[in-house]
């Protein structure tokens, strides 16, 4: 059974390479994402068989990080129904991460941040644009690209202060009278979101 393995592996590799565009590159040059420690230990155990390809060797190499820190941050801010900012070059964004307001400058360390309901501000020169974000994630890459995804993001002017107050009172009451864990969690979420909106409108 094992004698067939190398034939099967090389057959499946050639079948894949004849279909994919990267095939020509692969046959003449070694992709940089081959794990050399794996290949060495494979050769020790099974010197007569070609090492199998691992998923990482199929990946394109990651975009290289510039050696000097770029001057601008490229922001992609997307919502499920619209692309709010696409490839926009800005000086800084401040995102409402669960760990607090996080300022992102060009050259920020790669981070994945979960967002909490709060204000996201985009700073471009003297121009500051603020959005209230309901929740989402921010992916900060090594090449100073920030991908921010939110389910709902609205400019602060579109929020109705009286409804926020009403909602805050309503959910604070619900929190006090909640019985099951789920009801408490829902009421707690309501209180958090409305307090965040309140703070956003007054701050």
């Amino acid at each position, binding site marked *: 059974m094992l004698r067939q393995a190398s034939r099967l592996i090389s057959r499946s590799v050639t079948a894949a390479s004849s279909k994919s565009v990267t095939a020509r590159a692969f046959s003449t040059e070694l992709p940089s994402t081959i794990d050399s420690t794996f290949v060495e230990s494979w050769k020790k155990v099974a010197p007569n068989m070609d090492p199998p390809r691992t998923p990482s060797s199929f990946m394109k190499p990651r975009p290289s990080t510039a050696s000097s820190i770029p001057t601008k941050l490229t922001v992609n801010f997307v919502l499920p129904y619209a692309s709010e900012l696409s490839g926009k070059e800005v000086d800084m964004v401040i995102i409402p991460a669960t760990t607090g307001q996080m300022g992102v400058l060009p050259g920020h360390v790669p981070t994945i941040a979960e967002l909490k*309901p709060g204000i996201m501000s985009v700073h471009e020169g003297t121009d500051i644009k603020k959005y209230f974000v309901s929740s989402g994630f921010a992916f900060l890459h090594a090449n100073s690209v920030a991908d921010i995804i939110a*389910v709902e993001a609205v400019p602060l002017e*579109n929020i109705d202060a009286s409804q926020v107050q009403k*909602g805050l009172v309503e959910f604070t009451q619900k929190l006090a009278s909640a019985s099951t864990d*789920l009801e408490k*969690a829902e009421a707690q979420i309501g209180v958090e979101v409305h307090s965040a909106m309140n703070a956003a409108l007054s701050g």
Partner: protein
Amino acid sequence: MASSAAVPFWRAAGMTYITYSNICANLVRKCLKEPFKAESMNREKVHFSLSKWADGKPQKPVLRSDAPEVSDF
């Protein structure tokens, strides 16, 4: 074994992240000023029919629809 990571309160209550995120988004939408509120409610309307299958046949479908009822006239 006690869990080492501190879980958020909603996960401790059995809610998933998607449910939490959707609740937050709905609450924000409800607090919008008028033309934006109507637009967002319109955007979020769903219409689907779901039927479970048993013995190779679909059972009674469950219809979830936010579309207004259309009369025959």
